[in-house]
């Protein structure tokens, strides 16, 4: 019994490593189609519509709410030290450095990543990808690559839109409701945030998260079992794995970028 459980640990480890290897091959395949095949702008635009435009509402709504909460919490804490004037710096720094890219990554994972995995998984289950192969069309080229590219492209834009709406949400609560001076809010925000350390790091994070979510979602869908349970499993594991890797990578990017 004890030997069996140790065996299971070994099998899981080996399974994890070979999964990683399969994923690397898959990423290589996607990159290869990107370089060698004729680009498909129509498909990419359609996917950007699905990923970006349709996520806009929840990204803006969440951004406003997060900014409002930050404004309220920051104000309540700062006002004890008589430093309510630096509310803009608190809101801006936490948004640009962490909350903007991370929360956008999580939202887009839930909103678009899961849909991506489910769509490709259903195509696998209904043998549509095999049909494409029969017609000598590479399904990675037609289906997967446009989705991954759209994710990488849309994520930084969505992250910046999130950050800007959240700054506005903080402004609404801090300045309009609680009476912090509007000029002070914006000046402290602008002097605290600088381009090289904060904004560029924020864009880099969003870009990496876009690559992560795009790859994980398409890979999970592409390798899902061709059953109803397989599709649901692919969708769930997309959300779980993508969310966890966003949080883990966030730490490493922060540490390496020296923020």
């Amino acid at each position, binding site marked *: 019994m004890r030997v069996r459980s140790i065996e299971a640990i070994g099998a899981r480890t080996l399974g994890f490593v070979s999964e990683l290897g399969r994923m690397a091959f898959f990423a290589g395949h996607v990159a290869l189609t990107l370089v060698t095949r004729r680009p498909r702008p*129509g*498909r990419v*635009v*359609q996917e*950007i*519509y699905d990923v*970006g*435009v349709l996520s*806009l509402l929840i990204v803006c709504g969440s951004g406003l709410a997060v900014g409002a909460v930050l404004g309220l919490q920051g104000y309540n804490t700062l006002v004890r030290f008589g430093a309510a004037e630096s509310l803009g710096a608190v809101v*801006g720094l936490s948004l*640009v450095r962490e909350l903007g890219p991370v929360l956008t990554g999580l939202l887009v994972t839930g909103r678009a990543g899961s849909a991506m995995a489910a769509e490709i998984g259903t195509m696998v289950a209904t043998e549509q990808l095999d049909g494409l192969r029969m017609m000598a069309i590479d399904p990675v080229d037609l289906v997967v690559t446009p989705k991954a590219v759209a994710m990488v492209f*849309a994520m*930084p*834009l*969505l992250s*910046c*839109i999130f*950050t*800007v709406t959240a*700054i506005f949400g903080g402004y609404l609560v801090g300045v309009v409701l609680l009476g912090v001076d509007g000029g002070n809010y914006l000046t402290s*925000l*602008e*002097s605290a*945030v*600088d*381009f090289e350390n*904060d*904004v*560029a790091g*924020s*864009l880099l994070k969003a870009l990496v998260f876009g690559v992560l979510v795009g790859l994980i979602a398409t890979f999970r869908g592409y390798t899902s079992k061709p059953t109803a349970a397989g599709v649901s499993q692919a969708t769930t594991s997309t959300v779980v794995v993508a969310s966890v890797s966003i949080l883990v990578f966030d730490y490493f990017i922060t540490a390496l970028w020296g923020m």
Partner: protein
Amino acid sequence: MTPSPIRDFVVGLFVLVGLGAVAYLSFQVGGLSYKGPVGFHLVATFGEIGGLKVRAPVVISGVRVGQVERITLDSNLRARVLLDIDPKLKLSVDSTAAIRTAGLLGDQFVALVPGAEEEYLKSGDQIAYTESALGLESLVSKLVTGLGSGGSGGGEEKK
């Protein structure tokens, strides 16, 4: 998938809004628009720079005119601060560079006080008169230990 002009337009709009947000964050919030005046460098050495950091502002009468480019240690083990400032400025050779603190606990910056000489500093010149940073700690310790010894008035020094 039939091409749809409305969808293309909406996607284009999304991209424009996104790029607008990127631009707002980069230029307005990130302050990328501040193109540091290039080329005019001055050197100042200090005995103590406190918490002065690279990219800290350089001001004259409170107006920002440049930034700290590099901080190194010179051969006499004093801090050698390279300032990058607006080349249009005419600073006389007896100008003073002082490290000041914004507020009691704020960030440190370099304040230039113009002198009265007719001769002007050239790029690469060294500022002769400097005033080191006044740390809160050193102030307190001076207050505690030096009350009787007639206080030196904080590290003003001539080089």
